[in-house]
């Protein structure tokens, strides 16, 4: 059945990022940011940008691949792909789609990209004045359920109620991101550490989420260039292979007006097991994880659904010491890890993530996952070989990627 997995067939050739700014502060047009990130990824790969023949993105990215290919003088356009769905749920799916195109021969050199300059368009967390709500929105918007926080808080609230989750668990997730950002000069929150007191004193946005439970909004662009695995050894960096990827959500997750049968979920209950099965790994094999923080509650459920701990273990597992790359004794050797868990340690969001590095719709999380396999993270997990990303908890579709070093093939 080997032909039905992406495992080991595609490698990351290069990664590229622009400077990350607070929202509305980019001096460059959004389309220019996309070009800059793609060119940076090609340079990182040592690949001539005119060789790029495929583009994949998500969340209705505004920057059209045909225009990009023309702007960059790409010799041919062979693949242009958009993953359906909002938020960051497509961040790993776009990589899956790009990899599938390479594995199936549609294209040879595919770039996954995301560019955001929200000040130049409408911001995510703000509604237009007055107006009307049509279709299914008519059953939520007039009651003041409009922003992403308001749309997803009740999923986590239900989960927290069912499993007795404490606030300290969410705080640890937020603090891990801020902690890691202090070692990352690219991070928007570099030089701005977060204390427990700061977190506890922060204002409510949508209870159960405080300010520091919610992602930033930022300007910038990011890109990841993929090629067939055969080329990986000829490229400048330590090879990083895609071991598994999956996208979607469980049965009727998208049932309208909050009627998903399984409501208290981050939507990964079927997706994460598929990605791991494709990669041939279990949760205990994972050395480092990046989990998309739209809201910390979504991260918590996502970690549960990726199998890192059971819901009833969340309050004990989620401490800053267990989530920091430099925490205590570090990552335990694989022999010490119990099945379905990691001996209580999981370096999480090691670049600072959406909360503290940059909200580049989570593509920066996939870049950080690659950096960990290359050994180049600002918060490097020693000997990291298997690196996982969960993109976009609570939306649908969500997606996961599993990356591995040469030794994992």
């Amino acid at each position, binding site marked *: 059945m080997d032909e039905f997995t992406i495992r080991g067939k595609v490698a990351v050739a290069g990664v590229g990022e622009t400077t990350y700014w607070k929202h509305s502060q980019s001096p460059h047009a959004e389309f220019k940011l996309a070009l800059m990130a793609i060119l940076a990824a090609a340079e990182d790969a040592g690949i001539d940008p005119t060789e790029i023949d495929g583009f994949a993105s998500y969340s209705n990215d505004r920057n059209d691949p045909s225009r990009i290919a023309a702007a960059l003088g790409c010799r041919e356009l062979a693949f242009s792909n958009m993953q359906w769905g909002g938020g960051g749920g497509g961040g790993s799916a776009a990589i899956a789609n790009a990899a599938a195109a390479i594995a199936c021969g549609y294209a040879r050199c595919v770039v996954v990209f995301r560019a955001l300059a929200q000040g130049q368009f409408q911001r995510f967390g703000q509604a237009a004045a007055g107006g009307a709500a049509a279709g*299914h929105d008519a059953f939520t918007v007039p*009651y003041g359920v409009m922003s992403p926080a308001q749309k997803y808080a*009740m999923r986590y609230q*239900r989960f927290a109620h069912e499993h007795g989750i404490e606030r300290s668990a969410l705080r640890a997730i937020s603090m891990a991101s801020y902690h890691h950002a202090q070692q990352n000069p690219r991070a928007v929150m570099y030089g701005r550490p977060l204390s427990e007191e700061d977190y506890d004193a922060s204002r*409510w946005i949508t209870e159960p989420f405080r300010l520091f439970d919610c992602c930033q909004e930022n300007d910038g662009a990011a890109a990841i260039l993929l090629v067939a695995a055969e080329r990986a050894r000829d490229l400048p960096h330590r090879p990083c292979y895609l071991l598994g990827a999956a996208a979607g959500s469980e049965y009727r997750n998208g049932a309208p007006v909050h*009627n998903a049968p399984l409501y208290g979920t981050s939507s990964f209950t079927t997706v994460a097991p598929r990605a791991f099965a494709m990669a041939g790994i279990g949760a205990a094999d994972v050395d480092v994880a990046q989990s998309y923080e739209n809201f910390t509650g979504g991260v918590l459920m996502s970690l549960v659904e990726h199998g890192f701990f059971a819901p009833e273990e969340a309050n004990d597992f989620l401490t800053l010491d267990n989530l920091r790359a430099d925490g205590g004794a570090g990552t335990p050797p694989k022999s010490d890890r119990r099945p379905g868990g990691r001996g209580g340690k999981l370096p999480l969001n090691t670049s600072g993530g959406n909360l503290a590095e940059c909200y580049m719709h989570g593509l920066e999380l996939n870049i950080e996952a690659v950096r960990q396999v290359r050994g180049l993270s600002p918060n490097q997990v020693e000997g990291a070989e298997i690196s996982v990303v969960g993109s976009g908890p609570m939306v649908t579709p969500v997606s996961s990627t599993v990356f591995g070093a040469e030794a994992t093939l």
Partner: protein
Amino acid sequence: MSHLPEGMPRPLADELTEPFWAAAREERLVVQRCGDCETWQWGPEWCCHACRSFEMGWAEAPTRGRIYSWERNYHPVHPALRGRDPYVVVLVELPEAGGVRMVGNLLGDPMQEVRIGAEVEAVFEHHDEADPPYTLVQWRYV
């Protein structure tokens, strides 16, 4: 009087959802129900998720339910909410209508304790001055 400030977006009825909004004007709570297999369904959809029938009808649902989840919103994301009090949104499960869930506001003190599992009843909030008029379905503790 409305629970949220005036100037919030109004609901627009369409071909799929119009029976709900028309019933709410008459203080009746109706939910989609399959004409073939009697499955309750919410929100409205063109076909039944259980049997794929397009014969979706509407049935009156009891106006009592239980709080399934909730949130308390502070940050004003709409201009009409700026400078106003927080408000509570509840997701209400209707056990006698197949367990479907509806979204509304919990009436009363915005800082009141919200208890998952507590029983609530529907309150029809008429916006008679609107053009055209409409009615929201809100909830209060029994």
